[in-house]
């Protein structure tokens, strides 16, 4: 979500400067492709054992490998300067999925059935009783699942096999699981999200990234 500020920061840093972006290891490939002029790397997290309790420390070795940055900031903090109004939020897409993988997924989807292809993400992997009210159970999705003329595609990360089987048995509807690890292969998840015609999602704990995916490839 806060990554929407990155194109602005890249512009402000300019050709003379260098933007370094620290993200989760699973996002490095996707972000490096999307910001080819930036240096994208990941964290080296450690825990400091302390008499007062363990302290989480986050190191960024790649940032200082070759130079000392002039300044640094948490990704979201530039919002106070650059997003003072709703109108300041941009419309342009900036995350670039792997077009080769998008095409491969598109071809694989064609083999599953006719389009449109609709991706479904129906619950958080962090689902627990106290959170359950925020997440619609898959069975409640019945009216959506029974829409004719749609080929459904699984975008649900984590183990979804039991629920997919449940939907198959109860509603006679197939939610096609594609060959990708949606939890750890974020670049693959981005490509699949770009390959479908529409994605429908309940709120998830995953930072809300997929919403930006695929715009540049027209889906």
């Amino acid at each position, binding site marked *: 979500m806060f990554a929407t500020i990155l194109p602005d920061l890249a512009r402000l840093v300019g050709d003379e400067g260098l933007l370094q972006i620290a993200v989760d290891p699973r996002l490095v490939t996707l972000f490096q492709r999307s910001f080819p002029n930036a240096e994208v790397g990941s964290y080296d997290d450690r825990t400091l054992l302390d008499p007062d309790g363990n302290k989480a420390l986050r190191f960024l070795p790649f940032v200082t490998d070759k130079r000392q940055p002039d300044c640094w900031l948490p990704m979201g903090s530039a919002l106070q300067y650059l997003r003072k109004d709703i109108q300041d939020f941009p419309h342009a897409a900036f995350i670039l999925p792997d077009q080769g993988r998008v095409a491969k997924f598109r071809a694989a989807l064609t083999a599953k059935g006719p389009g*449109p292809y609709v991706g479904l993400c129906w619950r958080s992997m962090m689902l627990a009783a106290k959170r359950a009210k925020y997440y619609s159970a898959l069975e409640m999705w019945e009216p959506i699942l029974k829409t004719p003329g749609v080929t459904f595609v699984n975008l649900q990360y984590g183990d979804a096999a039991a629920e997919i089987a449940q939907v198959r048995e109860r509603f006679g509807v197939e939610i096609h699981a594609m060959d990708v690890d949606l939890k750890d292969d974020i670049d693959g998840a981005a490509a699949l999200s770009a390959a479908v015609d529409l994605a429908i*999602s309940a*709120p998830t704990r995953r930072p809300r990234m997929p919403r930006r995916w695929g715009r540049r490839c027209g889906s």
Partner: protein
Amino acid sequence: MWFLTAARTWPQLGTDEYPWYRKTQVFSPERFGDWATLIPQVAAELAAFVKNRA
């Protein structure tokens, strides 16, 4: 992207959409967590989406 929420959330910044993700369409029920009312509305939208593409 269609995004179903149990209620309005702070990232919507008081709007009916997600300013962070302009092409996202948000569906949230009048009453908190009232999925039974919301889901058929989304299903109707999906049927219209399919029809428009045909």
